[in-house]
């Protein structure tokens, strides 16, 4: 939380300054009491029920309701379709409406790159980055590869087949950056469904895969697949002994951002109110439990820092994908 505190101070200063200027400019009387208890909060979930984004949104909503942090009614709507293009497109069209809100995930960065959406990740009013969904590089238990060094060495000899979810995704970008820096080639195999990807690794068809830790924790515990390296900044407790890429000298700072955004051009009061409220949310035991259960790395950035993070990440994404000819 070291980063969090210092950021918090910086953001608070900036926020205050902005708040004053915006208030002076607009002096919107309607915004005097945000949030109003009579307005319904429309929470867009850009994916179907049961997915990572859905669970996170519903966790936050249940915390908001349990501790009565939000005065009015909250309605969660799954607006799935087009890898998030539909849901976030809906939020984008609610310009200036402080009663629309949504949760982000990896596709928040990648969908605009592949679909030419009218919005980009920085079009929205940022509230906070709350956590990062990190990946783990794993191999089959029968693989001769035991350590990260083994992996790099054997990859330099023969290009391995590495599986991941989708082509325009963190799953492709992180291994590509790693291969570039470590100086080896690899064949990337894109999958549509996690189940098929995991069985492909178990069947020995793939040499390795990158996957969200939570998806395979059971298989790792049972020893069916072996973790080689973790892409986040800090290895989760139960994976002690698995090195992070940063420890091995490959720090890319890329991950799927799990955060909260409001529609574009929302009044400063609403943004500040949400920053203040989300600060309370992440200190609740339910949130801590959620982070732990889903193996997320708590990575907290507030307001404009979040936008900056999104911009840097998207820039890297765009550069890598263009270089590899995946997007034009």
């Amino acid at each position: 939380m070291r980063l969090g505190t210092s950021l918090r101070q910086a953001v608070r200063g900036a926020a205050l300054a902005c708040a004053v200027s915006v208030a002076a400019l607009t002096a919107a009387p309607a915004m005097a009491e945000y949030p109003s208890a009579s307005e319904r909060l429309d929470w867009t979930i850009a994916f179907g029920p049961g997915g990572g984004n859905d669970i996170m949104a519903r966790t936050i909503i249940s915390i908001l309701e349990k501790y009565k942090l939000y005065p009015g009614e909250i309605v969660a709507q799954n607006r799935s379709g087009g890898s998030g293009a539909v849901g976030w497109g809906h939020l984008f069209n609610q310009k200036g409406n402080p009663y629309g809100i949504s949760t982000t995930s990896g596709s928040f960065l990648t969908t605009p790159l592949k679909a030419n959406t009218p919005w980009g990740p920085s079009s929205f009013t940022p509230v906070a980055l709350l956590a990062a969904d990190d990946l783990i590089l794993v191999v089959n238990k029968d693989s001769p590869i035991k350590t990260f060094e083994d992996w790099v060495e054997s990859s330099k000899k023969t290009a391995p087949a590495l599986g991941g979810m989708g082509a325009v995704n963190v799953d492709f970008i992180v291994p590509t950056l790693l291969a570039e820096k470590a100086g080896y080639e690899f064949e990337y195999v894109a999958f549509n469904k996690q189940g098929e990807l995991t069985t492909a690794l178990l069947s020995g068809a793939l040499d390795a895969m990158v996957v969200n830790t939570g998806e395979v924790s059971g298989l790792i515990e049972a020893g069916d697949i072996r973790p080689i390296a973790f892409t986040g900044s800090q290895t989760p407790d139960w994976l002690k002994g698995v090195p992070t890429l940063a420890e091995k000298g490959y720090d890319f700072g890329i991950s799927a951002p799990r955060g909260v955004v409001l529609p574009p051009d929302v009044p400063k009061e609403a943004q500040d109110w949400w920053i203040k409220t989300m600060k309370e949310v992440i200190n609740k035991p339910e949130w801590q439990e959620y982070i732990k259960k889903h193996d997320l790395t708590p990575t907290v950035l507030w307001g404009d820092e979040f936008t900056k993070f999104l911009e840097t990440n998207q820039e890297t994404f765009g550069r890598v994908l263009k270089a590899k000819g995946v997007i034009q």
Partner: protein
Amino acid sequence: MELFDHLLLGLSVAITPINIVYLLAGAMIGMIVGIIPGFGPAAGLSILLPLTFGMDPIGAIMMLAAIYYGAMYGGTITSILLNTPGESAVVASTFDGYPLAQQGRAGPALVMQAVASFFGGTVGVILITVLAAVFALVTRSFGPPEFFMLVMMGMVTLVVLIGDNWRYGAVSALIGFALGTVGVDLETGLQRFTFGSAELIGGIEFIPIAIGLFGLGELYYAFYQGLHRAGSGGIIQYQNEKEFWPNAQDWIVSKLALVRGSILGFCVGLMPGAGATVASLMAYSIEKSSSKTPERFGKGAMEGLVAPEAANNAASAGAMVPLLTLGIPGSASTAVLLAAFVLWGVKPGPLLMEQNPELAWGLVASMYLGNMALLAINIFAIPVFVMMLKVPYRLLAPAVILVCTMGTFSVHGSIIEVWLMFAAGIVGFFMKLYGYSPAATVLALVLGPLAEETLRQTLIISRGSPLIFVERGTSLIILLITLGVVAFGIYMSHSRKAEKMKANAVDTSSE
């Protein structure tokens, strides 16, 4: 007997008054939800998942599993009564189920359908109880080459399906394949045929196309024939409904189809991904090619309904194996169940059965109970469905359109998909009118993208060499089975022809 200990443990967990209430409620809700076109098991589960948040884990998972099963049972009802499959796994049930209903045998068809579902489901659960660990090994041997071979097996069925009217059949299937190429290309991220629409980058889904081609197409066709002017009944000759129960002949022809369909369904269902759809198709084509009277198929052969029904329910049990033993979802529905496990703090994986025996065996035990409950519910509910057909067509048809449209919308909350359904309805009407095959179109839509995806994955893994298909044991086995099925079909049709010729020869000589 460790096995019985496990099962007893499961039953002791499952049989509490409150859990039985959840189970029954789940089965009922699932069945009703399954009947609404658009709400397959997956959509039903994900919509109802939030309802279970407040419950205790075992009760909730029992209820969700019951919804899953119930929806599988319910899905067939519209296939039989309205020729509208709500899910790709029940497309095969329309082939003979709908003709049966048209001939005034909706009652027997629905009863046999429920029996077949029960039989398939129960065989599936018994196999899970006894041999889950062994079957987990099958799942473990499945990579892209094996998937491709499996999809090819399903494609063979398409050929059986197209049959005599091959030119129209080929056009129908190719339309499906073409629709399947819409969306973002998985490997390169390139957009194909999306015309810049964000809604299309995920591809064209089964539901709007199937509901349009079958549901609306069938309705327009009925209007075209002027059925709205008829007093009652309509597409289906309710007036001719003589008896509600299946007759002895129905049981005799279905006996072996039940067994074959169930075992085949379970085995194919073990494989994450294609599972139930391929299973039901294969069961149908095996039944047809092994039959002495294949010409009855497609015109109301009871075994042609029973086999795919037993297969798709057994497959839905089979899909639980990868979920319980490896933590891998085998279908869209089991993916929702997996999410539910995670939600309740259960870590799915190979250790699930050891670490959470109550939950795992409670779930298995609840499947036995659920299947029994569903059989009973079905038998009681079938008269109600058959009664529904008494409603004059001019009143029934608008209601069906209402449900189809809202059902399609609710899947993704997308108005574009509703328009797709609308367009598919017009095309479906003409296809029906002029003898094309909507079934070939929707099956090609499901199988085509899978074939492309898995073939390309395979060739990347093998660095371009097609030999990988024969080098990997499981893939080779599936290839051999497929060739065997094809050879058997050709042999049977030849021997039938020869027999007929012999019979003709005898006839003429005796004259």
